[in-house]
């Protein structure tokens, strides 16, 4: 008996309610069972706009209570299309059956058929960096801390400051946005006597004005707390550090009513640049956002993909991506980028010679409405999801540097120049002049009986190589005396040229 996912909160995402809002209430009345709406093939951009407006959840910070496993979503699909065990759904589907049978075409979007570009677009959009999920998972702890501090400050009507730090791509700005929204919601709900907060996201505010505001005694304008979020705080660091100091000192004024949240990358910014705050006992609370671990990345990706009713990625592929990105930097943006390019790999693969395979699949699902056995179905689905090899290719494309390819495609004489540089620097010296390089270069050319080029052409080739970032040329009046250093690893050069026997002998 297929069990539909009973928990309401996370399943809301499955309903892209484009038919009407009253359907929402209808669905809520159905106890414990949800129908997964089919995405209509509307204009993809209008779909995008509406998706964004529908991010309502009741408890944003609570962690999702169930572990998300995408495979579970397959079951109700199979029910509808195939097996007779669809009694769970048949009750509700009576009124909906008309809609289902109306467009057979639409039924095909139950599964992930990449040949439908709308589905691809939806997947890519869900994975885009600019799509903010409505629940920020894996950062509940940090959000709670900041929220507690802010709530405490608001209730006690005093000022406070927080310093949020962490590597790029760890969700700092995202979480602070969330905190801001929550604070607004909380304050309006519970503490009605407070007027709505004035939120400013500033990089450089008229400090003097604020300072005057906070040092005056009479605050006849009522009890307004100000929440200031400063992103990329380290751009405010000046030589005498006055701007930063003044900003954080705003919280020390006797009548100050501001909550300051500063976001930056450096972990010790508060210690290094704000030592004067310590004796005044107003050091900001430091919340560190650690880089994501493999499990966290995996959870976030799965959470995002749960928005879609179909299964676009194989679980092993997601795991590979999470593991690789967590080992490299723990940057969430990179993980999303890699997933998007894996989808594009799939698109490219399917666009090319295998369109016949897609047609066969479509035919089968068309004629095998009621009788398609589930196993064959899932087997076909395996072909059309993002597999581990797609993900592997996407990962190499992202993490590989183009140096080896470029070295292999260099013209012959430039490769000889690189070789002579490698041989020169093997002796321990780390830089040399163009004249000496020329000597080594001519030695190599003589040993292989290749006619060498003159010094003029050699120095212009060196300049070309330094443009590309392979060598570094110093400045000098005379060409021969310019200093040369290698910018790439010797191992890269050897690896790139290993296929050519001449260079192998040369570099022995």
């Amino acid at each position, binding site marked *: 008996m297929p069990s539909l996912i009973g928990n309401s909160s996370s399943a809301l995402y499955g309903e892209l309610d484009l038919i009407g809002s009253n359907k929402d209430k209808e669905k809520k009345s159905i106890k414990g069972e949800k129908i997964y709406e089919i995405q209509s093939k509307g204009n993809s951009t209008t779909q995008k706009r509406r998706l964004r407006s529908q991010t309502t959840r009741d408890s944003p910070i609570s962690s999702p209570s169930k572990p998300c496993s995408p495979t579970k979503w397959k079951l109700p699909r199979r029910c509808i299309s195939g097996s007779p065990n669809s009694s769970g759904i048949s009750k509700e589907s009576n009124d909906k059956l008309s809609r289902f049978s109306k467009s057979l075409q639409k039924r095909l979007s139950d599964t992930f058929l990449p040949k439908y570009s709308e589905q691809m677009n939806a997947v890519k959009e869900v994975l885009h960096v*600019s799509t903010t999920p409505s629940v920020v998972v894996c950062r509940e702890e940090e959000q709670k801390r900041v929220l507690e501090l802010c709530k405490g400050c608001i209730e006690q009507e005093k000022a406070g400051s927080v310093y949020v730090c962490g590597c790029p791509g760890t969700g700092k700005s995202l979480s602070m946005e969330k905190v801001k929204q929550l604070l607004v919601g909380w304050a309006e709900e519970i503490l009605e006597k407070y007027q709505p907060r004035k939120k400013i996201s500033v990089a450089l505010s008229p400090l003097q004005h604020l300072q005057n505001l906070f040092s005056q005694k009479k605050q006849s304008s009522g009890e307004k707390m100000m929440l200031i979020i400063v992103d990329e705080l380290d751009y405010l660091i000046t030589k005498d550090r006055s701007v930063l100091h003044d900003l954080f000192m705003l919280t020390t004024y006797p009548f100050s009513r501001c909550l300051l949240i500063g976001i930056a990358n450096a972990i010790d910014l508060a210690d290094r640049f704000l030592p004067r705050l310590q004796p005044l006992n107003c050091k900001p609370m430091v919340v560190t956002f650690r880089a994501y671990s493999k499990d966290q990345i995996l959870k976030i990706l799965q959470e995002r993909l749960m928005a879609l009713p179909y299964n676009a990625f194989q679980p092993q592929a997601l795991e590979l991506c999470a593991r690789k990105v967590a080992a490299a930097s723990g940057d969430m943006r990179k993980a999303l980028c890699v997933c998007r390019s894996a989808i594009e790999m799939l698109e490219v693969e399917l666009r090319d010679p295998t369109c016949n395979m897609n047609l066969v699949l479509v035919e089968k699902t068309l004629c095998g409405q009621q009788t398609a056995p589930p196993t064959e179905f899932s087997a076909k689905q395996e072909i059309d999801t993002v597999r581990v090899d797609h993900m592997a290719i996407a990962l190499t494309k992202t993490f590989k540097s183009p140096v080896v390819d470029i070295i292999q495609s260099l013209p012959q004489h430039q490769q000889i120049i690189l070789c002579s540089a490698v041989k020169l620097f093997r002796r321990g010296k780390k830089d040399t002049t163009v004249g000496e390089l020329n000597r080594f270069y001519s030695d190599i050319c003589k040993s292989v009986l290749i006619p060498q080029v003159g010094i003029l052409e050699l120095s212009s080739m060196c300049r070309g190589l330094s443009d590309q970032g392979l060598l570094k040329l110093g400045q000098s009046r005379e060409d021969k005396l310019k200093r040369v250093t290698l910018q790439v690893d010797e191992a890269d050069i050897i690896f790139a040229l290993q296929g050519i026997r001449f260079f192998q002998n040369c570099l022995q």
Partner: protein
Amino acid sequence: MEGENQAEKALILIRSRICNPSYIFTPFSDSPESNYSKLKFIISNSVTEACNNSILLLGPRGCGKIAVLNLVLRDLLAEHPDMVSVIRLNGLLHSDDNCALKEIARQLCVEHQLLFSKMASFDDNSQFMISMLRECGLAHKTIIFVLDEFDLFAQGKQRLLYSLLDAMQSITSQAVVIGVSCRLDADQLLEKRVRSRFSHRKLLFLPPSKEELQRLLEHILSLPIDSSFSHDYAMEFNAKLHKIVGDCRFTEIVDTLSGSDSTVNHLLKFLFRAVCCMDLDFGFLTLENFKTAILSIQRQPKLECLQDCSVLELYILVCMKRLEDKEQNSYNFNSVMKEYKGIHDSYQTSDYYARNVCLRAFEHLLQRELICFTDNRGQSQSVEFRPVKLLISSHELYPGLKSNRSCPLAY
């Protein structure tokens, strides 16, 4: 008469082809694996799906990055005429943030027929850019930023890059940032938060392989078999061309050419020269044209200088070389004279000239810049006592000696 007209027309056609980058790079853009298709796929996805993207085009200079990008943009503008607007910035001109924002604001104004004020401040310009991004996002119009010489934008604080890439992280904007650079490690130059916002897509533009080179040559140089040329002339031209291209001497020439620089630009310069050498009376390209072209590319100015030297001057140069071989680091005219006398004594040559004649030859060499003074301080001393050095190396001297017609020394 008729033949000359045809030859002239052919010349004009081929020259105009060589100077037209979109013609040159079209044959590379056919296959789905080519950079053209990949770039087009990415940008048109961004335009139609209304999502933001960033990409870096890397490759040596002269490999066609901007040419292919222009091809893609031209096709996109033809397909979606009102949905795309292009802003072009260059790292050499606009690496300063103020300049860059001013330029962006100016181009946006021109595009949308607004008035641009030169007095606008940095803040005004950045506000304008942000609101334009938002407006265009709402109108589903994609703004494509082309940043040429991307590595130069990565100097300093990278504020422009950060603000552009950060604007793309928000939902309201619809923009594509395309960076073009010849430095391979352009993305390593970015600060870590800018790099985090950059989408790590890179397209590599490599110089063409040998097969592609062949295809390109035929593509550029063959005449079309249509009404603009007489059928016989065109067929004969193409047949002769095909024979030349298949000749092993021609392959040798092309190999020498691409041994030092294998980019498409270099090849185009060579072809232009070769085509211009075409004899209009004969009316067809010959192997000689290509040989002349490669010789003119591989000029050795010092060698040509040496060919014109007199015997005495050559003697002086050889003496200086010998002194250098003997590890004498600084020598002047007097030491050279001593060496000269030494050679004369040991070899018993008949070419012994008086001192003042030698001094005049010495001064000739100085003027021709084959030798020069080692320092500029001794202006008060006479020519004979100032230290000099050779400006040509030994492997330039030897062929020079060999090629000089009247040189008696078997060095």
